[in-house]
């Protein structure tokens, strides 16, 4: 156990602090980084790549900084951006999911064509995985492509395509092998969002905002070369990047930042004679959340150390998504309670606190608990992969409409 980073890393940290001090004023605001980055955000991104504060390990040939992987330096970079309250490199789905996939499984031509413009914010991507009928059971997706004169012809519908409105390109899972078993019939295609036959409709969520879209494909024609990996291998191509997404949701720095915002709120918000934090019942909940945040931060350091030593993340890693999303949701829940009646105010109201973000967070974080593998799926994974518990016994396949089979299922059958 040694929480010092040692002189090399301390120097790196100092260097980065100096950089942030000198250049931090050039960073874009949070809003400007969303989806289609502003000119300001693109400039900032380029500056960060030059200095190795983002795209750090991506080869220079493809527009990155070209450094060896160094988990500690990556960690220091994340910590220092967070500490300074300055946005780091672009973190869209193209960069976090497509780029690693191409680097690992793309052709040389694909890498040359797409990695650099993606890193530089010139090409914006969206993700086409989930479908209305394929959520938890993603592999049952139905959007299909047939081959016709050297082109995939795509029909179907995707959901949760978050930046589809702004995107230039999409990376998309479609069923190409109709006779293969469900995981083996999927291909991973990349194509332009300007291709004829694509329609994007904003998807409003419970928050009242349209943070996502639905995307419809009707006879969308894509050259057969625009596939990543082999035909029928798309499930496995995508899985590497799903791992990246899961990692993002459990950032302990983000939890800590939210928790600190809650502490500030509870010190400011007054009801009756005292501040919210003077109420011992609310304060006890605050303390309980703080201990959980501390535990997740320590858990994060442990995962980091394991990576450094090349050891697997194990149980410590498997539980991150489940615990972090729940904790973030509970932090927002306490914030709402601490505001008392003011807790119901929403964005745009008179007297709202922090622009109504606590209620927005409370709802959006419930979405995160559900998205990217529901809490129930997470528990299955922890039990089966982490604890090596038996899988559910295999069932005879159900075919036909759900309604018809319901009665068939209602046979007397114990279920512990």
């Amino acid at each position, binding site marked *: 156990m040694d929480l010092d980073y040692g002189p090399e890393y301390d120097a790196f940290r100092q260097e980065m602090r100096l950089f942030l001090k000198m250049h931090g004023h050039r960073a874009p605001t949070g809003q400007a980084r969303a989806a289609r980055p502003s000119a300001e955000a693109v400039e900032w991104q380029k500056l960060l790549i030059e200095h190795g504060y983002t795209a750090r390990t991506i080869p220079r040939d493809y527009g990155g900084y070209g450094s060896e992987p160094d988990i500690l330096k990556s960690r220091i970079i994340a910590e220092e951006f967070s500490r300074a309250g300055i946005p780091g490199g672009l973190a869209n789905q193209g960069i976090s999911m497509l780029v690693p996939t191409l680097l690992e499984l793309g052709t040389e031509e694909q890498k040359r064509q797409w990695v650099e413009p993606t890193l530089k914010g010139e090409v914006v991507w969206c993700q086409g995985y989930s479908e209305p*009928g394929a959520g938890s059971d993603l592999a049952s997706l139905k959007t299909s492509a047939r081959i016709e004169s050297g082109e995939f012809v795509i029909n179907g519908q995707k959901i949760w395509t978050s930046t589809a409105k702004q995107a230039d390109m999409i990376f998309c899972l479609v069923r190409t092998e109709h006779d293969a078993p469900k995981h083996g019939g999927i291909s991973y295609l990349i194509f332009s969002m300007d291709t004829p036959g694509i329609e994007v409709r904003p998807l409003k969520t419970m928050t009242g905002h349209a943070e996502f879209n639905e995307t419809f494909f009707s006879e969308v024609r894509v050259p057969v070369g625009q596939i990543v990996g082999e035909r029928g291998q798309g499930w496995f191509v995508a899985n590497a990047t799903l791992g990246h997404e899961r990692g993002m949701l459990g950032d302990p720095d983000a939890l800590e930042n939210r928790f600190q915002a809650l502490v500030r709120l509870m010190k400011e918000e007054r009801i009756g004679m005292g501040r919210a934090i003077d109420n011992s019942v609310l304060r006890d909940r605050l303390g309980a959340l703080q201990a959980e945040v501390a535990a997740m931060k320590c858990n994060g350091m442990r995962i980091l150390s394991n990576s450094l030593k090349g050891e697997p993340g194990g149980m410590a890693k498997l539980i991150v998504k489940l615990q972090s999303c729940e904790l973030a949701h509970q932090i927002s829940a306490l914030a709402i309670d601490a505001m008392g009646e003011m*807790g119901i105010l929403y964005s745009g109201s008179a007297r709202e606190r922090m622009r109504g973000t606590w209620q927005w967070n409370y709802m959006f974080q419930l979405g995160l608990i559900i998205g990217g593998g529901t809490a129930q799926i997470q528990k299955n994974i922890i039990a089966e992969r982490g604890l090596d518990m038996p899988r559910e016994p295999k069932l005879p396949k159900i075919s036909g409409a759900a309604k018809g089979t319901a009665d068939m299922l209602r046979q007397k059958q114990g279920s512990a």
Partner: protein
Amino acid sequence: MDFGLSQEQQMLRDAVARCLADTCPLEHVRECSERDNPVSDKVLDALQGLGIPGMMIPEEHGGLGMTLLDAALVAEQLAYAVAPVSFLASHVLAPLALSEAGSEDQKVRWLPKIASGEAHISVAISETVEARDGAGVTCRGGKLDGTALFALDFAGADAFLVTDTTGRLHLVPANASGLEKIPLTTIDRTRSVGELRFAQVTAEPLADDSGFTAGRLRDAGRILLAADSLGAGQAMIEKAVDYSGQREQFGRLIGSFQAVKHMCAEMAAHHEPCRSLIWYAAYAYEAMPEDVSLAACQAKSHTGDVHRFVARTSTEVHGGMGFTDLVGLHYWFKRIGFDRQVLGGPESARAEAAVLQGWIKAA
């Protein structure tokens, strides 16, 4: 001895349910909730046909003279349909306040008009629950000054009933000089709430200067908010069960997965006793007034916790679909979120319950 609803109460409940099923489909809720004033004249008119606006008004003033339990049943149905109408303050609390503490003149002036749907009064008693910096209304020489937060059934009100810092209620016409009305935007777009600012506003006090009436309104308000959560929770549980009986994943109805079944079972197991607790509290309002404050605190705090759990769990059962606006599940979710906080959250109501029982002295 009968712990349950009378035939008349069941008929009332069913009539309101039918009326709302006919006039207030989700699409209508959606339209109304996008407006500044969400109140649906169509739904209000239909409820008028059942006499709902006058249900709490004595017969001699043109109403039906019903009980708080009747009102709780209506509140439950309104929430079940997430009906965008004024009710809690306008048609329960205000009539109760005037009936219990109004002058004969005030009754004659307002009650028949409320019963007939011609007028409605918004009620602002938040200050008796949560004193806030920069809020609070003082009364000197018959003039009100200060700020009252969270006037309920705010939009379109013809008058406001507001408590001053001594707990006395005052009646203020909506067009009173020196009164500023500021709408507040909350998560729940089916109900209207606002803030009132008073600068030397002339008001009529109600007779009771003991704070007793404000306390009665708080009790009644808490019980009805609990009943509202009950109705919203009922809808959310039914929707979760329905959805899980239709949606397939992994080649099975998701409702056949034990995890989903247990989520639904836990919702039902927590939800069902709330119904009885609310009936008891509402019944106590008239039948056992010495018990009602405690029962109201319990009903409010317990449903606050139970239905936060129900709202969240039903959404989870719906998966991604529950998070979208498509199925509109969030209307109920937000209704429950509103009910939890207004007139005091669970911790606050429990703190009050402790004082009521003498577990500790008032702070």
